[in-house]
């Protein structure tokens, strides 16, 4: 009871004071900066609210264990069930990305590697296991889970990762295994996933201490679908010329749809963002001061170099107007249906981009290239994320040949700067851009 009150209080009272303090510091910093510099358009007003929202989420999380049930969840997990049961969810991938941006991965990975985990593992995994083993985190504290929830629709690595978490933390693991889809999932594949979701409802209900309320699940499903729709509308604003924000902005704004999907807080934020973007489109305000070339990005962002990349590109008038990564969160979620929460979740979560074959991936890239009228594409060949990077040589050739656009294959890693050769890499980027001039 007391813990619950502290959890609520952390969100309602302590946190607003902290954010007010940060906002004040932010204003102070801004007033000191020279106005008008740099290749970017005016910053998004919503960004401050985004920081508040995410900081609030992590801050409240510090007080979550013991107050509410806590689950650690993979990004592609059918989270609606957990949400309906009142779980506070932590997304290790989102947390790892946060560490990546702050270049903490080498430090955390060293801990994981010293414990025997291979450097060839995904850098999210190494970041997370290193964080768990060393109890280090940039967010103060992560609440301990009572449940680990893993869905293999993004990769098989997550299964082994979560098994290790289960071993270290001594908590149960629920698995939703989604067979890889060639074309469209067959009826028996969907039945197999649906059965697991039904079991999930029972197991998670037992862990949370109360059974799943069917009405609440319908409500959460509706909210989650609405969130995906709103996120899609935010992304679609970039069909305008100039795009009202940069692709890099999009990478950062993905946090709520990943970590807070199915909550009103998430949807409220995206409404605000969408309105701001649409207003910028109406006024012709761009993410760049001068948008000369429009690009598509495939695969995860290179978190530790995101700002560097965006500046290098922006200085020459290049903007990512679409990315398959941010699009995935708009695309998948709209398929869930409040009238059939479990059946539609089985279908939707089985058909996410990383669980589909290459022709499907090519279709998505082709469609995004056309919808967003891009002149070029960068396919990030991510050393860590094998399922996303496999087949990119063929995708590159097909995209270039079919759409007549320039396509660059850029080798990097989403979280580990040790796998990124900055000098040759930036050289490739520069040569790619020179090709447009």
């Amino acid at each position, binding site marked *: 009871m007391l813990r619950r009150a502290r959890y609520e209080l952390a969100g309602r009272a302590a946190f607003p004071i902290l954010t007010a303090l940060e906002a004040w510091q932010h204003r102070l910093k801004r007033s000191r900066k020279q106005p008008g510099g740099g290749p970017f358009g005016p910053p998004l007003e919503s960004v401050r609210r985004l920081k508040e929202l995410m900081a609030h989420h992590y801050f409240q999380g510090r007080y979550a264990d013991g107050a509410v049930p806590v689950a650690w969840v993979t990004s592609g997990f059918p989270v609606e069930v957990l949400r309906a049961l009142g779980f506070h969810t932590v997304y290790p991938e989102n947390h790892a990305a946060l560490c990546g941006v702050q270049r903490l991965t080498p430090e955390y990975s060293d801990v994981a590697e010293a414990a025997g985990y291979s450097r060839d593992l995904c850098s999210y995994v190494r970041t997370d296991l290193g964080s768990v083993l060393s109890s280090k985190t940039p967010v103060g504290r992560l609440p301990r889970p009572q449940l680990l929830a893993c869905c293999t629709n993004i990769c098989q690595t997550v299964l082994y990762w979560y098994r290790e978490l289960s071993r270290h933390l001594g908590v149960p693991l629920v698995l939703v295994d989604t067979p890889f889809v060639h074309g469209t999932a067959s009826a028996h594949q969907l039945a197999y996933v649906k059965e697991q979701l039904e079991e999930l409802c029972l197991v998670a209900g037992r862990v949370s201490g109360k059974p799943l309320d069917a009405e609440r699940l319908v409500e959460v499903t509706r909210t989650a679908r609405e969130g995906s729709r709103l996120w899609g509308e935010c992304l679609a604003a970039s069909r305008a010329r100039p795009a009202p924000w940069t692709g890099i902005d999009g990478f950062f704004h993905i946090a709520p749809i990943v970590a807070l999907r199915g909550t009103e807080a998430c949807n409220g934020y995206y409404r605000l963002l969408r309105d701001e973007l649409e207003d910028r489109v109406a006024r012709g305000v761009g993410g760049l001061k001068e948008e000369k070339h429009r690009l598509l990005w495939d695969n995860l962002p290179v978190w530790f170099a995101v700002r560097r990349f965006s500046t290098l590109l922006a200085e020459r008038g290049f903007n990512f107007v679409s990315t398959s990564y941010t699009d995935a969160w708009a695309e998948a979620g709209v398929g869930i249906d409040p009238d059939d929460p479990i059946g539609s979740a089985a279908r939707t979560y089985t058909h996410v981009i990383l669980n589909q074959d290459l022709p499907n991936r090519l279709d998505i890239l082709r469609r995004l290239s056309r919808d967003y009228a891009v002149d070029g594409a960068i396919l990030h060949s991510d050393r860590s994320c094998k399922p996303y990077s496999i087949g990119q040589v063929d995708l590159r050739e097909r995209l*270039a040949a079919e759409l007549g656009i320039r396509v660059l*294959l850029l080798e990097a890693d989403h979280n580990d700067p040790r796998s990124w*050769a900055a*000098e*040759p890499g930036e050289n*490739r980027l520069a*040569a790619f851009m*020179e090709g447009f001039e």
Partner: protein
Amino acid sequence: MKAPARGAVTGVAIGVDVGSTSCKAVLVDGAGRIVGRRLEPAHPRVEEQTGRLVAALVAEAGVEVPVGATGYGRKRVAAARVLTEITCHARGAHALHGGGGLLVDMGGQDTKVIAIGPAGDVTDFAMNDKCAAGTGRFLEVILARLQVPLDEVAGYAARAGAPVTVSSTCTVFAESEVISLVAEGRPAEGIVRGLHLALASRVAALARGRPGTGPVLLSGGVALNAAMVTALAEALGRPVRVLPEPQLVGALGAALSVLERIP
């Protein structure tokens, strides 16, 4: 922006290519021909070295001329125009070959495959992984280990019977692999040939999917190695044309690029 017309050079210019192994500078005349050249091992003090090379070429020209720079150290050169070596190699090769085509540039630190359009523009390119395997440095290290002088490489490869396979793709590991092959009594000739074939097949993999039927153009220091030229032609299944003064192609492109900007 449309690619500017090439070949309309109207003055003299200097091009500097600061590579990982060597530093190159050329002076070109109004017709885009190389009329002065300097080539030295790369020095860590880029500003000093390039300043000296440029001053020497300016003295040859007798007048101040604009400078274009390329290569890894390009940003540290006092130049009117700075472009990546990918763009400059394309410009240089286009001028030397008199048209577009597929260029393989094998330098000290990287190998590039560049598709050049009819106007000298880069239509597509690919480079070796972020590692020295498949580059001039790789060959240099291993040949030094085998004590094969560079000017005898072609003879070694030609004399070889069956090639000996060197399976490691890492320069450091390949070096130790070669040591054990030698210890096993494998002939140096076979190892040299095996190395060249392995390298050539890696280049051919980079060139995969880049169309064209004419000769593949070759530039960079490795182009002076006849054994590599033979191995490449074999792996690519196409004739290979070594560009004249292959090490200077990037510098030439840098000089030409600066002339494009002069109205």
